[in-house]
């Protein structure tokens, strides 16, 4: 397998160097997360903490708990419903090709790449006028938006997965008298669980990471790019201000928490899929 035919151990030098490059930001974040408030300072950012302090995590959790809770009640239904619709789409597109399927699929694919900026204005107007008119405001409206924008990616993953399932399996089911929905319900759905985990993970991930729309105060959907941009931006500003100028406008909370939470979801899902 040694394809470059140079001393194998030499290959570890670039690998370890790159590993250090990838680890540096993580090191800074973990080390800073465990420092006590007084210890956090840009001049000593490379030093190890003088002891393990969980203050920052506790504080971050206290401040972020409402946002996190909002994320969860928004993300979980959005991911589940989006994955389910995606699996239905994928099933039809992979196994029950209808006339025009080859025409529609590229459009669904393109949906994956649409910049949020170009749909933001109509989306805001739709949420603020149409959806409010029918009484759908706040988080349900956002869930709807996330379901719709999650459909392309889930459709693609499910379509590719179902395309790899042998046609004979479906034929056999058909001979045994299953109709289209029966095949989906009894054959494809039961073997889709890894795909559901993957799809849900992806969806959760995308939702947690970039929420282009967020519910504002008193349940009125306003658009602000990122609930967490504001949170983190502000908190990191505290951090920087304190560290630079030595004054403390507020307690620094730490973005570690959200890395941590999204990593925990990924790890949990990866483990489930394994």
């Amino acid at each position: 397998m040694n394809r470059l035919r140079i001393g194998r151990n030499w290959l570890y030098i670039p690998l370890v160097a790159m590993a250090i490059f990838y680890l540096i930001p993580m090191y800074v974040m973990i080390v800073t997360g465990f420092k006590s408030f007084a210890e956090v300072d840009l001049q000593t950012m490379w030093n190890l903490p003088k002891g393990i302090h969980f203050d920052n995590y506790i504080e971050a959790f206290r401040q972020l708990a409402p946002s996190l809770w909002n994320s969860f009640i928004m993300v979980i239904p959005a991911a589940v419903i989006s994955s389910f619709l995606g699996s239905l789409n994928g099933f039809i597109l992979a196994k029950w090709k209808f006339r025009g399927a080859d025409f529609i699929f590229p459009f669904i694919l393109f949906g994956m790449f649409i910049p949020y900026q170009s749909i933001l204005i109509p989306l805001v107007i739709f949420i603020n006028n149409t959806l409010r008119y029918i009484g759908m405001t706040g988080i349900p409206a956002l869930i709807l938006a996330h379901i719709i924008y999650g459909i392309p990616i889930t459709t693609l993953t499910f379509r590719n997965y179902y395309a790899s399932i042998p046609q004979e399996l479906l034929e056999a089911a058909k001979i045994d008298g299953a109709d289209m929905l029966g095949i989906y319900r009894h054959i494809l759905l039961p073997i889709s669980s890894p795909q559901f985990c993957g799809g849900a993970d992806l969806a959760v991930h995308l939702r947690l990471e970039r929420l282009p729309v967020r519910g504002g105060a008193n349940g009125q959907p306003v658009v602000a790019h990122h609930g967490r941009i504001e949170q983190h931006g502000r908190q990191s500003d505290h951090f920087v201000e304190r560290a630079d100028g030595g004054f403390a406008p507020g307690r620094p909370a730490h973005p570690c928490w959200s890395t941590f939470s999204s990593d925990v979801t990924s790890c949990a899902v990866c483990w489930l899929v394994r």
Partner: protein
Amino acid sequence: VPDYTWAGLSNYINLFSDPRFLVDIRNTLIFTGVFVIGSILLGFFLAVMLDQGLKGEGFFRSLFLFPMAISYIVTGVVWRWLMNPAEGDRLSGFNLLFSQLNLDFLINKWHTTETWGIAAIALAAIWQMSGYTMAIYLAGLRSIPDELREAARIDGAGEFQIYRHIILPLLSPVTLSALIILGHMSLKVFDLIIAVAGKQLPLDVPAIYMWQTTFDGLFYGRGAAIGILLLVSVAVLIIPYIRYTLKTETQQ
């Protein structure tokens, strides 16, 4: 009272004579160039290294891949600390590390550099996305049968020639998808820049301009024009790619 008169193409024409939008275009081009080329070179290099069947490959693979699991906001906040441009005895981040390692010539102003500051932000983006290019290149390398390498070796090709004449051409579909996926991401970049530098004019990109002019300035017409231009630029990249992918798929 909203003005509903038909504006024709004036929103678009005004944009192209708007100095801020011209800066946005320049920044997007620099960012895209540095980010896409950097991620592809680094990803390919790492994939070749990991393809040598070394011990601990799994460890390195997950390590290189993990930044992808982090959101741009978190990446941005950490890199904001790392790329702190403060000078003198307030040195910090990478600059502090460089001075402690006696590498003072490396100390620089990062994203506050004139014109090229946006390239520093592309560095953070490379950190985040090069693992992804590594993963798709590695999958591509693994799908190349060993017989092809053997045959080239028998014909007297050196290892470098094998990579140059056999492996790279076979990997061109992978390079294409990496180009497209990274390219369309860099056209849309927003959160990373906001997290590293906030809304600063020298680091402005179309997505930030669109945000500010629409929701802070309430110039919906100009905002919509930027949004559509973004959509068109992404579509120019993506539509041929989708057509190509679907065509090769049906051929198989």
